[in-house]
């Protein structure tokens, strides 16, 4: 039978979509299970299947996770940890991204003797296992008087992320024609004016990519958070870990699930919001003039 292609999709098409749907379901299933569990009470969790829908939208586990669940001795929920993470991640992401942009600008458009060697050395930073720097870093933070502070964590994340952000911007700026910089130099612009007025406005797509990358890394970081934070500066990943590990007679799966979703929500939000910018930037950011 020779069907019209417009009426019946080909077998290949059906297969492709089938596989894609299966893959999507596979990756979304845990999220679904977490979501439905977070709306159930303890009795419901015990009696119904993991995948069954909850009887109603019961937000009590969410409010417990946010403001009253115990994370060790304190019972203030995730809220203080969440704000610690916000005050840590926002400046760390912005500083490391802008700093990387500046490095990339110098390494691609203001090349100097040895700049390619320097860039090569910088690449080691991308592959450096962070466990290696834990001890020296804690020494440095101690010397700077930043131990156990959020400012210290911001510094650590900036330094740890710098190699990656520099790499992103350096490679993106390598495609900017040198003539553009020369034109601006002839027009009387200096190093900083060229950066702010000409180069940075061209960087939206790579800026969004780096922002997503850095935010995800810094928000989700556990290692630095657990090593370098003090009692008042623990980020949300450490808070979540403490919340889930604080033992009580009955394991409150609904609270654990709500807390885990709260901890993951900002990164998801960034993907949804900035991801759109990213795609738009990719198509509109034609440098060629």
């Amino acid at each position, binding site marked *: 039978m020779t069907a019209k292609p417009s009426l019946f999709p080909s077998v290949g098409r059906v297969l492709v979509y089938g596989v894609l749907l299966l893959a999507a379901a596979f990756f979304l299933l845990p999220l679904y299970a977490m979501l439905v569990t977070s709306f159930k009470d303890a009795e419901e969790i015990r009696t119904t299947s993991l995948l069954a829908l909850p009887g109603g939208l019961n937000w009590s586990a969410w409010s417990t996770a946010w403001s009253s669940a115990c994370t060790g001795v304190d019972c203030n929920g995730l809220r203080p940890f969440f704000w610690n993470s916000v005050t840590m991640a926002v400046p760390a992401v912005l500083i490391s991204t802008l700093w990387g942009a500046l490095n990339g600008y110098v390494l691609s458009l203001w090349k100097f003797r040895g700049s390619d060697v320097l860039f090569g050395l910088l690449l080691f930073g991308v592959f450096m296992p962070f466990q290696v720097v834990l001890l020296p870093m804690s020494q440095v933070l101690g010397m700077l008087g930043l131990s156990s502070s959020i400012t210290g964590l911001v510094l650590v994340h900036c330094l740890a992320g710098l190699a990656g952000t520099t790499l992103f911007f350096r490679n993106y700026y390598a495609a900017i024609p040198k003539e553009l910089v020369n034109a601006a130099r*002839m027009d009387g612009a200096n190093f900083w004016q060229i950066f702010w007025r000409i180069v940075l406005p061209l960087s939206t797509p790579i800026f969004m990519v780096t922002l997503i990358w850095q935010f995800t890394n810094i928000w989700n970081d556990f290692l630095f958070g657990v090593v370098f934070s003090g009692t008042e500066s623990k980020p949300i990943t450490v808070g979540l870990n403490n919340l889930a590990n604080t033992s009580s007679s009955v394991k409150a799966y609904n609270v654990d699930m709500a807390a885990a979703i709260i901890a993951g929500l900002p990164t998801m939000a960034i993907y949804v919001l900035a991801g759109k910018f990213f795609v738009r930037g990719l198509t509109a950011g034609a440098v060629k003039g």
Partner: protein
Amino acid sequence: MASSLEIAGINKRFGNGDKSVEVLRRVDIHVAPGEFLILVGPSGCGKSTLLNIIAGLDDPTEGEVRIGGKNVVGMPPRDRDIAMVFQSYALYPTMSVADNIGFALEMRKMPKAERQKRIDEVAAMLQISHLLDRRPSQLSGGQRQRVAMGRALARQPQLFLFDEPLSNLDAKLRVEMRAEIKRLHQASGITSVYVTHDQVEAMTLGSRIAVMKGGVVQQLGTPDDIYNRPANTYVATFIGSPTMNLLRGAPTGGQFGIQGAALNLAAPASANEVLLGVRPEHLVMQDSAPWRGKVSVVEPTGPDTYVVVDTAAGSVTLRTDAQTRVQPGDAVGLAVEPANAHWFDASSENRLA
């Protein structure tokens, strides 16, 4: 206000020690105020490097660049008061046309109202007033070219530099913009240096032309000098299309002799072999001429017809008018007026007398 430009003893080498490459050697050019100098040559001849050295985007290894009598080597580009038009136009992609034109003025802290006035004037002069709010990506190639010109003109600098500004345009636009550049130069009177590899641009725009090859200026002179008194065979064949015919022969008994061809031309006194150069328009077909050949190709171009003739002295090209009726295979006679003959030494390739 037009300034003079002196390029004095410029040498430029890239790299160090044994691996260094010499790209400019002893370049000396004096450009008078208001002059339009053309740097022409094949790619890799050093013409763009020389332009970058004048602009301050590159430094010479030795030598001085003097603008209005003042040495500017070592001075950053923004302090030299030079405007430059780039081959790729290099318009700022995220700025409007108006901001592109006004950027240099803004960098020089010109008040906004005055800036706006200047932008409007320049836009009117270049007929791009209706494009001022657009982004460069929304413009055609010719419009981008005009904006790039406007950006340079708005500055009213001491010196204009052009780096092959027309090479990205199609043939028709190129001719249009060429005339436009000439008109703007005549109106502004600003000293200009223009780099091109196109010999027609060189001949039509330049008040003087520097023909370059291998980092050395081969000849510096007016278009008339360059065309009618080329200093060597390189200049002779680089300028002019179709290229000048070159015939090698020995002066025997005061006559130029090539085996099997009688040219009836008095040769210059020379011990060596010589090269006779004849431009295609100076070779004429003459039934009675003793120099005989056979037509191999006929190329009508519209106003002229190019005819390739195989002779015993080699294959030559001549330019005749469109009415000429010859066929491949026809036997023809060729003649050269002695006044139209160029003589070069066959080994040094330099002009004789």
